[in-house]
């Protein structure tokens, strides 16, 4: 019990004094997850919207696949990305394994289906609302998608935040493809796992607090966004 209390004390001290390691790891975490978020959003938001608007033959199958992909275990994603990027794998020559880029790739694979699925849900509702009007006004497919993305931007932001929350707290995949190398690929979650294993709770707890703060921030963001959405304020 004493261990934990002194750990918490030390952790606060690390944060207050802006400990160099803590800052470095936090920044890398943000860099990896934000990059993954941007790439995944660019792919998933238009795709989710398109899926809501477009009727095509394999639409149901596509949606089912998307939902299944959402449940992919991160560890398995990590394993697959590892195999693809490893020296003997098809993309081995790129030398990406154990770099932040590899971690970004893994996180993109994990959160793209999640963001696309949430975006699709929200856009489907909005499309049901707008359908008759946009058809009547003789809009092009592109105009329809742009209109939905713009008017549904709060819902899409919520989808993005959910994706970010998943990425920043994820440990299985980035541990495998990043390798948790000090000053290279160590991020919040992998560092916490390592320090906890070593029994060094100071840094682990300090990093844990940062992670919790980020997670809370994300959830407050989602909450207030969906509230303004409901009240029709913007």
């Amino acid at each position, binding site marked *: 019990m004493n261990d934990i209390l002194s750990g918490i004390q030390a952790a606060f001290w690390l944060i207050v004094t802006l400990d160099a390691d803590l800052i470095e790891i936090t920044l890398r975490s943000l860099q990896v997850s934000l990059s993954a978020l941007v790439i995944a959003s660019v792919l998933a938001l238009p795709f989710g919207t398109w899926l809501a608007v477009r009727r095509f033959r394999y639409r149901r199958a596509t949606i089912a696949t998307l939902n299944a992909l959402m449940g992919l275990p991160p560890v398995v994603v990590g394993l697959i990305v590892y195999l693809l990027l490893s020296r003997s794998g098809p993309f081995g020559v790129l030398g990406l394994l154990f770099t932040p880029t590899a971690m970004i790739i893994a996180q993109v694979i994990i959160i793209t289906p999640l963001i696309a699925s949430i975006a699709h849900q929200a856009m489907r509702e909005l499309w049901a*609302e707008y359908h*008759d*009007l946009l058809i*009547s*006004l*003789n809009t092009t497919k592109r105009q329809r998608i742009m*209109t939905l993305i713009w*008017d549904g931007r709060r819902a899409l932001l919520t989808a993005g935040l959910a994706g970010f929350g998943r990425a920043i707290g994820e440990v299985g995949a980035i541990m495998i493809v990043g390798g948790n190398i000090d000053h290279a690929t160590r991020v919040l979650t992998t560092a916490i796992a390592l320090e906890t294993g070593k029994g060094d709770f100071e840094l682990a707890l300090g990093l844990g607090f940062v992670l919790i703060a980020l997670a809370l921030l994300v959830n407050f963001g989602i909450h207030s966004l969906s509230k303004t959405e409901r009240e*029709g304020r*913007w």
Partner: protein
Amino acid sequence: MTHSMSVSLHKMHVKRRGKSILGPIDLELAPTGFTMVLGPNGAGKTTLLKVLHGIERVSSGSVQWSVSGAQAQQEQAYVFQSPIMLRRSVSQNLAYPLQISGISKAEITGRVETWLDRIGLSNMAERPATRLSGGERQKLALGRALIRDPQVLFLDEPCANLDGRSTREIEALLLNTLHTGTRIIMTTHDIGQARRLASDVVFLLNGELHEQGRATEFFDEPKTPEAKAFLNGDIVE
């Protein structure tokens, strides 16, 4: 812009899940005038308007506008029975049809202002449209339909939620629109309003075209007992 549009329906039939909901109908509508589509609830009025506008699938028969299908729809506007509000401000709702047809910003601003004034919503231009009252929504939907200066205007009960004064204002606006050369096809449950506005009448009953003709004739001496009963406000079977 004045190549007028007439339309003819030939054995037009709409079926849903094997059930006939409208038709088969043979109908000619002249390129000008104010056509009032009348009939009790569920008669098929909305369906007919949507078919004419080209947004309802026809099961058999044909709908032929005097211009090509794409052009016809481009120059038509439709006000839905329950107004659809974009989740944007009132003035952005008005601007939307102009934006998608690629009109310059300066012109959009001018036209939006004009129409805000005509529909009496100038003082709530920046309000979210989703926060308008039912009547205000109907006015906005009407303004948004008229702002592109359509040749054909479809109105599905545009005054259902309006008070007496707003109804008169809207009627004046509609007659004004008619006189600038727009063809209007409208539904209403307000017989008085139908009398005030219509130049001809299409009377539907149970998904069938029951009577069609000049407004004066229809209102003064309806040919069928059903139409007579409908005009008297009796229940029509």
